[in-house]
């Protein structure tokens, strides 16, 4: 792969590569199905208010704790709220949080990782030590700590997840950058007289991305699990918002009396979403194969 | 010429992959007389390694030996069950591979990897096996064998690792030693030492050696006979003398002429085109697209193998042209 300097050619080549990717993804029907699932979930999240049959926050004491029925495909909870509508709206929260956190992490990591990889020296050393220290924490535990410290709201959850993900992306981008900074086109860019920042961010960085895309897809699943986990504990989401982890926690208290639908469906939603992301991520990794050794 | 120790006839090996059936080896014939060093030479992908693995019946899914006979010491190896085949591996027929460092188990000591084969195949007890191992290490030209016995592959150089592999292969006194590109990845000077060693050990133990290589120079320097493979087929085989003096197949000619020479002043030649894909190979001669004397019939039917001069085999419609 190379980074052409012409704008139009660049776009054409990238488009072609994207089409090849889609074609190869299609060949494996299982992962193609998974990518359709992701698409469906994203659409559900976007169009939630139009898809959900009821208002997720509408309480109705007379309809409390109804099991699965034709009117309420996933039943109702203790406040009479329709579980299906809540699950649909929950997609918004979980996906959005995971996505924003991932994008922030990617943004910061791209900057740090490419700088570190290209410049080397004490900057690289220092950054790697910081990264190592952050990675000395089990990621969920660290996310807990950060959210608890910053305050109990969703923004802080996003920050917490972003922070726990930055080390992985940074290492990855740095590794790729180390690889390609000695390549011919980098040398060419240097000799032509491009300013260093342009070399790093315009010419070299885009070529670091394929393994990062794979990791990001897989990390989305982890991000969703983390949001749900934090909300389950009570960190991040505030009632009455619908969020899958929080809903599972709500439903947990009722299993002793046998009301299973309140906890089951949100948890199932989490599982299906994470599964879909993992499968697509694995398929992407297989496609981009030999470069992927060592990424888990 | 002594009786053939190994006689391969009409061997065909296919690999069933996602992209299609790869016809890796297609109806080859190979004669290896006892006590000689026979070379198999060809580009990568010509089927040399697959042939070697087929002899030892190590072709695994998705590969399958479709047909053929491999006569070793009078027995057809392809008729044997796995149970009957295994005792032959490592004891009657041994094999050494390229990249010696990765062909040795990194977590076992060099000596143990030799000794356990001696224990297994020669049924030796601990003390005797240990002594024989040390002897063997010494024989392959490694100084202080007692110390090397305890070392691990990562502590040894590439050349030493290959010597250990040779020791592993010859410790059991096999009749046939298959060497699959044993010098790839080694320094030129080390490679020469290894080849000298192989030749010497072959002479000493009387083992027959099947030397697989892509290097014609190696063939010229060490082999008695040679078979030339192209795209899964044996296109020519003869004694080394005859082959170099009078190559008959266009591919062989091109191969020989493409070796750069300091004594002859000429432009470096290359062989045009690429090896044809083995998934839907051409039904005629597989060299047709790259051949300068190609005729209509070459593309239609595969050229049959002709025997000239008693032991010079060639598969070409254009014999004698040059």
């Amino acid at each position, binding site marked *: 792969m190379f980074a052409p300097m012409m704008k139009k050619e660049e776009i054409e080549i990238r488009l072609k590569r994207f089409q090849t990717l889609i074609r190869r993804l299609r060949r494996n029907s299982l992962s193609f199905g998974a990518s359709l699932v992701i698409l469906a979930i994203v659409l559900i999240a976007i169009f939630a208010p139009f898809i959900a049959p009821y208002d997720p926050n509408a309480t109705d004491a007379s309809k409390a704790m109804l099991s699965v029925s034709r009117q309420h495909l996933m039943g109702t909870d203790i406040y009479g709220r329709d579980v299906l509508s809540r699950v649909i709206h929950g997609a918004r929260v979980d996906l959005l949080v995971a996505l924003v956190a991932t994008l922030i992490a990617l943004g910061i990591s791209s900057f740090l990782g490419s700088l570190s990889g290209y410049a080397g020296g004490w900057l690289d050393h220092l950054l790697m030590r910081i990264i190592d220290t952050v990675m000395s924490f089990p990621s969920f535990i660290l996310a807990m700590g950060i959210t608890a410290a910053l305050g109990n709201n969703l923004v802080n959850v996003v920050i917490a997840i972003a922070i726990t993900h930055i080390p992985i992306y940074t290492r990855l981008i740095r590794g790729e950058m180390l690889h390609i900074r000695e390549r011919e086109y980098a040398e060419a860019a240097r000799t032509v007289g491009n300013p260093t920042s342009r070399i790093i961010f315009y010419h070299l960085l885009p070529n670091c991305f394929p393994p990062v895309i794979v990791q990001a897809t897989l990390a989305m699943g982890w991000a969703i699990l983390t949001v749900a986990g934090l909300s389950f504990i009570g960190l991040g989401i505030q009632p009455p918002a619908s969020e899958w982890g929080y809903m599972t926690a709500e439903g947990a208290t009722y299993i002793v009396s046998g009301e299973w639908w309140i906890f089951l469906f949100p948890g199932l939603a989490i599982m299906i979403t*994470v599964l879909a992301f993992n499968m697509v991520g694995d398929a992407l990794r297989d496609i981009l194969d030999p470069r992927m050794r060592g990424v888990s | 010429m002594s009786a053939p120790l190994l006689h391969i006839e009409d061997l065909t090996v296919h690999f069933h992959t996602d992209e299609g059936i790869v016809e890796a080896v297609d109806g080859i014939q190979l004669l290896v007389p006892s006590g000689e060093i026979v070379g198999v030479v060809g580009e990568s992908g010509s089927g040399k390694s697959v042939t070697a693995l087929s002899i030892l019946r190590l072709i695994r899914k998705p590969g399958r030996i479709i047909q053929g006979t491999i006569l070793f010491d009078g027995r057809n190896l392809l008729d044997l069950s796995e149970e009957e085949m295994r005792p032959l591996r490592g004891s009657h027929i041994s094999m050494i591979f390229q990249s010696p460092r990765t062909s040795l188990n990194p977590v076992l000591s060099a000596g143990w990897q030799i000794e356990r084969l001696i224990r297994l195949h020669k049924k030796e007890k601990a003390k005797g096996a240990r002594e024989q191992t040390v002897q063997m290490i010494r024989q392959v030209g490694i100084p202080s064998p007692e110390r090397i016995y305890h070392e691990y592959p990562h502590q040894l150089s590439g050349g030493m690792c290959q010597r250990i592999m040779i020791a592993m292969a010859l410790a059991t006194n096999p009749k046939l030693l298959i060497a699959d590109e044993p010098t790839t990845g080694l320094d030129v000077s080390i490679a020469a030492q290894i080849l000298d060693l192989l030749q010497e050990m072959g002479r000493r133990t009387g083992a027959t050696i099947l030397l697989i290589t892509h290097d014609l120079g190696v063939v010229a320097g060490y082999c008695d006979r040679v078979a030339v493979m192209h795209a899964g087929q044996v296109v020519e085989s003869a004694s080394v003398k005859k082959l170099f003096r009078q190559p008959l197949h266009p591919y062989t000619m091109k191969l020989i002429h493409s070796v750069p020479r300091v004594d002859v002043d000429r432009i470096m030649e290359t062989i045009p085109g690429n090896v044809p894909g083995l998934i839907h190979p051409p039904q005629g001669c597989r060299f047709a697209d790259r051949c300068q004397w190609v005729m209509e019939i070459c593309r239609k039917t595969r050229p049959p193998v002709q025997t000239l001069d008693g032991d010079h085999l060639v598969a070409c419609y254009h014999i004698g042209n040059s």
Partner: protein
Amino acid sequence: MGLSRYLFKRLLMVIPTLLGVTLITFTLTYLLPGNPAIVKAGPFATPEHLALMEKEMGLDRPIYVQYWRYLSGVARGDLGQSSSTGRPVLEDFLQRIPATLELTLASLMIAVGLGIPLAVVSAVRRDSFLDHACRIVGVGGVAMPTFWTGILLLYIFFYYFGLAPPPLGRLSSGVPPPASFTGLYTLDSLLTGNFRALGSSLHHLLLPAVTLGFSVMAPLTRMVRATMLEVLSSDYIKAAEASGLPQRQIVYGDALRNTLIPVITLIGVIFGFLMGGNVVVELVFGWPGIGNYAVTSLMSKDAQPIQSFVLFVSVVYVLVNLLVDIAYGLADPRIRLR
């Protein structure tokens, strides 16, 4: 020798890592909303009393001084005060650690004892029924939120089948805990021959350990299987086959050995997942461990325990990884020598 150098380097690295960990947790503690002086002084403190308390706690000093106080406090074992129990956090921890330890060990045994053999057999018998089942479980298990699995199992085995005990703790009410030696009820009851306590504690431990164990087993099995497959397709295994060694010896001797060595480092990675999952499992099953304590304190607006919990768990994680690296250095001849 290579080994002692490796160990020395590794040990040396632990110190700055631990310092870094304390630095981060200090930052988090520093970021805690609220004035810790109020917590200590109590809700009825006068402004002068508060100012005095602040001075005493060094809250008016520059950051690096505060960090030093924090660090020396931690070294002494001062992890702060819990406003909900009113006791030092360390004391609360010590009381609850045995429960967490028991759960963690049991889950680890399940994950490793089941996960590794499963992965090995799955790699050896590729594309068999077992392999497919293993891969499905692996892929699915990684996607299942641990808390959800726990609740699901509770629903099935507690509510529906009535086989599991209610998620109220480590023993059934009416069964007194065994004499305390290790604090692990299962071990203690075994040691003292208290079979009633043994049965009850095992009964209560089963479901939470299975939940946590399975959730950790999924990534472990995937990684071990991948390693085994890679090893099985390596050059030296091919060479071993060519040398006539029996298949059994090649797979369960040579290949397995080469797989298990890197798996040692995997155990360290798994431990991180274990710690994370511990928290939610303790919550779901009412298991009285430190994770449960940290979270329930937080729910009562008592933030100190959770920060100390983060510190504690991370220090343990760092030390476990150190042990893992030491074990790996001993096991792999490529590190042990030269």
